[in-house]
C-alpha cells in the first residue's frame, strides 16, 4: 500500500502490470467500453422511428418488382441507437480531444458556428432543382465564397463543384485537356514530382495522361533543370504542390511556370497546403493556371472521419472558359443567375461538361464561408502566419533529437519533416508513431513524402496553443530517446489504446467486408 504523501496528493503507482492482469467479465475497462456489432444486437422488427399506420394502401402501382418481405436490416430503438453510436464514438481520436499533427491533412479546430450555419434551413432544407427564384440566398452564399476564393488566390475564375481535392485535381486537368484540344494540340504527358501526393499521378492517369516523374533536389524541392529539360510538345502540363509535401515553399514556381507556358503547357498547382500561405501569397502571381482548394483543410470544414470534403478549383484566364457546369453569376440587378445546361451554349459554350450532379458541396461552402468571414482578410493572414510559426517551433524544438533532413537549410512552412535516421537497429517510424498513441496523440503522417526515408510529417496547425505544443514536444522527445535507445516496449506499442496493432495482412488476404451470420 502506498503512503499518502503530506500534500494530500496520491503518488502515482506503477500500475502497468496490474492493469494488464485485471480481466473483466464484459471486456470493458471502466470508461473504455466494448461495443458489439449492430448485427449482433439489432433485429429487423425493431425500430426507433414511429410511422402513422395506414391500412388502405394499394400497392398495385409498384408492378411486378414489388418485394415479398422487408429487407434484412437490423434496427434498434432510439435509446439503443444513441448508446451504440456514442460508445463507438469513444473509440475514436479526434481534434476535439487533442493535437492531431497529421502532416498534409491540416487537422485544425472546426468552429461550431460553421456547423450551426450549415444547418440553417435556407441552406440545409432546399432542393438543388428548385426554381432559381426560390434559392437566391443559397446561390448568393455560393457566389460570395467564389469571390473570396478568386481574390485570395489572384486567379480569374473558379469551378465550385468538385467534391474533394482529388476531384478538383481531375477538374483542373480536364480544363487543361479541354484548352489544349480547343487549340488542336492534344498532348499526352503530365509531369509530376516524386514528392507529390498519390492522388496527382492517379488523377493524371484517370484523365487519360501518361505520368512521368520529376526528381527532387537535395534540398527537397522540384529539380527545375530536370523539369525544364523534359518540357516539349508532348507535355500537357505539370502538377506541383506548393508549399510542397516536404513542408517547403517551391521558390522557383514562377520560373517553372514561365518555362511550361513557353513550351505550350499549363501549370496545375495542388493546393492541399494553401493554408500555409493564404493571405500572404496569391498563386495567380506565380503563374498557376489551376489549383484546387481543399475547403476541409484550409477553410476548416470538418473531416468527418474521411469526408465529405470539397475541392473548388480556381482557374487562370486561359483555363476559365473551359470550367465545368454549373456556376453562378451575379447579375446587374444583384440577383444570382445559375448557368447550367439550359443557358450554357450561350454564356459558357466551351465548358468541358459536368463533374457531378447538382451544385457541389453546399454544406461545405456555407461552413467555409462562415470560417472565412470570421477571420476576414486580416485574420486569414494571421492563420497562415501562426500555422507556419507553430510548425517551425516544433521543428526547432525537436531537431536536436530527431533528424530533420531539410532543417539546416532554413525555415519550414506549415509542417515539419523528420526522418528515422539515428533510431536503434530494428526501430522505425511506425514504432514512434504508435508510441504517440499511448501518449494520447494521433500520430503524424508517416512514410510520406516518399523522398525521405522513414518520413514523419508533423503539421500542428494554427489552432494549437503553445502550452499544448510544449506537451506534445515533450512526448516526441521522450519517444525519440526511446527509439534511439531501442526500448522494446515501443516495438509493440500501442499498449493503452482500445486495440493493439491490427493484423492488416490477414484483413487483405481474406477480406471480410460485410457481416455474415454464422
Amino acid at each position, binding site marked *: 500500500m502506498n503512503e499518502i504523501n503530506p500534500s494530500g496528493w496520491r503518488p502515482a503507482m506503477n500500475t502497468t502490470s496490474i492493469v494488464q492482469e485485471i480481466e473483466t467479465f464484459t471486456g470493458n475497462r471502466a470508461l473504455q467500453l466494448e461495443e458489439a456489432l449492430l448485427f449482433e444486437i439489432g433485429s429487423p422488427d425493431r425500430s426507433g422511428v414511429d410511422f402513422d399506420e395506414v391500412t388502405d394502401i394499394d400497392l398495385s402501382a409498384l408492378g411486378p418488382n414489388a418485394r415479398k418481405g422487408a429487407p434484412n436490416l437490423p434496427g434498434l430503438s432510439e435509446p439503443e441507437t444513441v448508446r451504440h453510436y456514442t460508445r463507438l464514438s469513444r473509440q475514436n481520436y479526434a481534434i476535439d480531444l487533442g493535437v492531431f499533427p497529421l502532416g498534409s491533412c491540416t487537422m485544425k479546430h472546426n468552429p461550431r458556428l460553421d456547423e450551426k450555419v450549415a444547418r440553417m434551413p435556407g441552406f440545409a432544407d432546399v432542393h438543388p432543382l428548385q426554381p432559381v427564384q426560390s434559392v437566391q440566398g443559397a446561390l448568393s452564399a455560393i457566389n460570395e465564397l467564389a469571390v473570396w476564393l478568386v481574390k485570395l488566390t489572384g486567379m480569374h475564375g473558379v469551378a465550385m463543384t468538385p467534391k474533394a481535392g482529388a476531384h478538383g485535381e481531375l477538374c483542373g486537368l480536364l480544363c487543361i485537356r479541354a484548352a489544349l484540344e480547343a487549340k488542336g494540340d492534344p498532348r499526352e504527358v503530365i509531369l509530376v514530382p516524386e514528392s507529390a501526393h498519390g492522388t496527382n499521378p492517379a*488523377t493524371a492517369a484517370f484523365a487519360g495522361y501518361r505520368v512521368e516523374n520529376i526528381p527532387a533536389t537535395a534540398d527537397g524541392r522540384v529539380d527545375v533543370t530536370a523539369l525544364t529539360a523534359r518540357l516539349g510538345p508532348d507535355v500537357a502540363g505539370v502538377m506541383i504542390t506548393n508549399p510542397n509535401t516536404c513542408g517547403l515553399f517551391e521558390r522557383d514556381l514562377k520560373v517553372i511556370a514561365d518555362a511550361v507556358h513557353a513550351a505550350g503547357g499549363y501549370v496545375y498547382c495542388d493546393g492541399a497546403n494553401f493554408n500555409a500561405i493564404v493571405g500572404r501569397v496569391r498563386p495567380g502571381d506565380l503563374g498557376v493556371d489551376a489549383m484546387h482548394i481543399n475547403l*476541409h483543410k484550409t477553410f476548416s470544414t470538418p473531416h468527418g472521419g474521411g469526408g465529405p470534403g470539397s475541392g473548388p478549383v480556381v482557374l487562370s484566364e486561359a483555363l476559365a472558359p473551359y470550367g465545368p457546369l454549373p456556376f453562378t453569376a451575379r447579375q446587374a440587378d444583384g440577383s444570382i443567375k445559375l448557368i447550367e445546361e439550359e443557358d450554357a451554349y450561350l454564356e459558357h459554350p466551351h465548358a468541358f461538361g459536368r463533374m457531378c450532379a447538382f451544385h457541389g458541396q453546399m454544406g461545405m461552402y456555407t461552413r467555409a464561408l462562415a470560417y472565412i468571414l470570421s477571420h476576414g482578410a486580416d485574420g486569414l493572414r494571421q492563420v497562415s502566419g501562426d500555422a507556419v510559426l507553430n510548425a517551425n517551433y516544433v521543428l526547432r524544438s525537436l531537431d536536436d533529437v530527431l533528424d530533420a533532413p531539410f532543417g539546416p537549410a532554413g525555415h519550414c512552412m506549415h509542417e515539419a519533416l523528420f526522418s528515422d535516421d539515428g533510431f536503434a537497429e530494428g526501430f522505425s517510424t511506425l514504432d514512434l508513431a504508435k508510441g504517440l498513441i499511448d501518449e494520447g496523440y494521433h500520430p503524424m503522417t508517416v512514410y510520406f513524402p516518399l523522398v525521405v526515408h522513414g518520413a514523419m510529417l508533423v503539421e500542428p496547425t494554427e489552432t494549437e496553443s503553445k502550452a499544448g505544443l510544449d506537451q506534445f514536444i515533450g512526448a516526441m522527445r521522450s519517444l525519440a530517446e526511446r527509439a534511439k535507445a531501442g526500448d522494446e516496449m515501443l516495438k509493440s506499442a500501442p499498449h493503452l489504446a482500445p486495440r493493439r496493432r491490427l493484423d492488416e495482412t490477414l484483413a487483405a488476404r481474406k477480406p471480410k467486408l460485410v457481416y455474415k451470420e454464422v
Partner: protein
Amino acid sequence: MRYLPLTDADRSAMLSVVGAGSIDELFADVPEHARLTAPIAGLPQHASEMAVERHMARLSADNITAGSVPFFLGAGAYRHHIPATVDHMIQRGEFLTAYTPYQPEIAQGTLQVLFEFQTQVARLFGTDIANASLYDGSTACWEAIAMAARITRRNKAVLSCGLHPHYVETSRTMAKFTGDELDISEPALIADTDDAAVIAKIDGETSCVVVQYPDVLGRIPDLAAIAAAAQAKGALLIAVVTEPVALGLLESPGSLGADIVVGEGQAIGVGLQFGGPYLGLFGCREKFVRQIPGRLCGETVDADGKRGFVLTLSTREQHIRREKATSNICTNSGLCALAFSVHMTLLGGAGLAKMARLSHHRARKTAERLAQIPGVTVVNRHYFNEFAVTLPKDARQVVRDLADRKILGGVSLGRLYPQVEALSTGLLIAATECTTDDDISALATALEEVLA
C-alpha cells in the same frame, strides 16, 4: 481572434526559439514579387460570431425552404423525415472531427461504423459486398462504368434513356477523356420503360448496361430481363438507385441479377442540402473486390486476438498505387455514411418498409388528385414515389408560377433536358411520408389556377 490560441507573448517566445525576428521572416522563401505585405485589399476584415451568424441568417432567409411549403421535388434528391438522433450522432466531435481511419487502434469507432455501413448497403442492394462510400450517386455511376471496362476489357457502355441526365453528363464528361464510348439517349413520355430497346443495343463489345431503377421518370424497368441479356453477351448490368427508400418496397437490384449496384444515399439520413454533400453508394459481386474504387473496411484481429477493423485492400488505392490505382478518390463521404447508417439503424428493415409504403401511398394520392385536373395526364403505369405528368404548356414556366404561389411543385423535364422539345411539357412529381393531404390539395388547386 477566437480561433487562434497564440498570444503575442507566445509568438515572441516561439520566434526566439525558431531564430526569427518576425513571422514575416518565416516566409523568406517566397520570392519578393509574390510576397504580400498587407491583407488583400477589397476584402472584409474579421468579424464576430454574432456578425457572421447574422449575415448568414440573412442569406438563409432569402430562400423558400422545402419544409415551409407544399413540396414535390425529387429527380435524384428526396426529402424524407430525418430523426433528430441522426444529427445528434454526427455532431459527436469524435466522429465529426476525426480523420480518415488510417490509425486503426484509435479509430475503431469510425471503422466499425464503416463495416456496418458496408453491410447495410450490401443488404439493401442485394450485393455481396459494398464499399465505404464515394462522393455521390453521379460519380459512383461513372466509377462503376470505369470498373466494368476494367473487368470486361471492353469500353462500350450502353446508358439506358432513363438514367438521370446529370449522371449521363458526369459520365459523358469523363468518357470524353478516357476514350470510353457511351450510347446515350433521352426518354420519351410513355407509360413503361422500353427494356427491349436497351437489350437491343447490347452486343459483344458492350462492357456494361447502365439502368436506373426506378428510372428518372419514376418507371420501374425489368432488371432481371436486362441482366440476363447483358450477361449472355458478356456484359455487366449496372443498376443505379437514386431513391434508396424504394428498396423498402421493391426487390433489390442484386437479387434481380445486377452485377454492380450504385446509388445516391442522400434520401436516408443526409437531407437535401441544396445538392451536397451527398453519399455515393457502391455494391457489387465479391469476385470484383480487387477492382472496386474507393475505401474498403475489413474485419481482422489485433495483437491480442480481439476483433477489430482496418481499411484494407489499399493496394488498389492512389496513395499506394499512384498512377495505377483503380480510382483517384481519396476523401469520400464518411460523415454522410454515418448519417445514413444511423438513420438506417433507427429504421431497421421493418421501418424502412413502412417509410417506403407511406411514401408510395402519398405519391399515389398525389397522382390520383392531379389526374383529375383537365389537361394533366399521369404518364407512368408503375412507380414508387415519383412519377411524370404531362401538362398543356411548358412545365418550366408552370414550376416558376407555382413557386410564386409558394408551392414547390416538382422538377420540370425542360430543366433537365433543355434540348429536347418533346419533353418540355413534362413535370416530375415526388412525394414522401412528409407529404400531407393539405400539401396535395394546395398543389392541385394552384396547378388548376396556373393552367387555367
